[in-house]
């Protein structure tokens, strides 16, 4: 069975995928992961997960431009320029802040 190994390098950091090992069962997988990814004290923790338990998703759909929940959906430069001109507070060079 193939097990995926995720490692945490230092406390507080995210677990990152480190590699995979082949083992007959969980007990062996833990032993092998500890050695292959931790014998030099290079990891503070490991997650060992059977490969079938990991589901990859790599397709995302955004056909109708859902920019309303992203920063690039809010171009304020023009409106800000106009608002400053109206209030008499515009100064050169204009820039959006």
């Amino acid at each position, binding site marked *: 069975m*193939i097990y995926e190994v995720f490692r945490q390098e230092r406390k507080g950091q995210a677990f990152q995928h*480190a*590699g*995979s*090992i*082949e083992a*007959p069962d969980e007990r*062996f997988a833990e032993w092998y992961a500890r050695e*292959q990814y931790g014998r030099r004290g290079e990891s503070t923790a490991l997650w060992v997960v059977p490969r079938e338990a990991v589901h*990859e998703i790599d397709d995302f759909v955004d056909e109708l431009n859902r920019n309303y929940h992203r920063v690039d959906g809010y171009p304020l430069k023009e409106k800000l320029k106009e608002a400053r001109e109206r209030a008499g507070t515009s100064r050169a060079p204009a820039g959006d802040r």
Partner: protein
Amino acid sequence: MAREDEFLQYVQSGGQVETDDWMPDEYRARLRKFIEMHGNSELMGVLPEREWILRAPTLQRKLALTAKVQDEVGHAQLIYRVVEDLGKPREQCLDDLISGKSKFHNVFHYPTKTWGDVGVIAWLVDAAAIISQKALLKCSYAPYARIMKKICWEESFHILHGRDVILTMMLGTDDQRELVQEALNRWWGPLMQFHGNPIAADEDPMYVWRIKSQGNDEARQQFLDGYVPQIWELGLTVPDPKLRKDEKTERWHYTEPDWDELMSVVTGHGPKTEDRLDLRRRARENSAWVRSVLLAA
């Protein structure tokens, strides 16, 4: 054809692919063969050094050498996993290695005759290997690039261990210094052949597809730049009267390596090829029962 051209442009501008991404058949085939040869080399590289684990002269050297060889086995594990995810099971790789169908690097076909060899291998052969390995860190095939990061990091202590062994001997008895020089004399030829024949980078498919980021001659020049000064500063001589650095071009001149010897060795005719493949075959046969017990549910 257009899709392949697109792929080529993509990888040549630094793009990487994952296991399940589309790749041209030729790319996938060459990639897998290249990576498989690397795995084979790590596995076969264990054998010359293994003999000296059993003869290490101090507890510290014993531990360091065992750990070094353990790392190499660990690298073989990482590499064969990548090959397996590309479609070729580990057992099939081992079958092909043992039958002579697939290759491994030239340096692992030669005998290790003395403790001097142990030092020279860890210092210089590993140095030559690290140069090649660093050129794989940006491999267009991402899973391989990722394991190369771990491999390069682990190799860093191997060279230091090698240098420590050599320095200790060079500061020791006349016999010890002689052991180092004698080992260097025997290993220089294979070292010069290690990075491969002088094919131009843009004619080398491995470079074209950005599987590696450096041509063979560049790697060799880098090796000479880094290590000839280290060799000379210890009072050791390199057995090549033509070896010198051209001040103007900043390139090293040397006696052309024996490319026939390289070809002969990597196709299975090295001095220790048969013995070592035989050892692998017997070890594998003797432990076949273990693997079948473990695979049974």
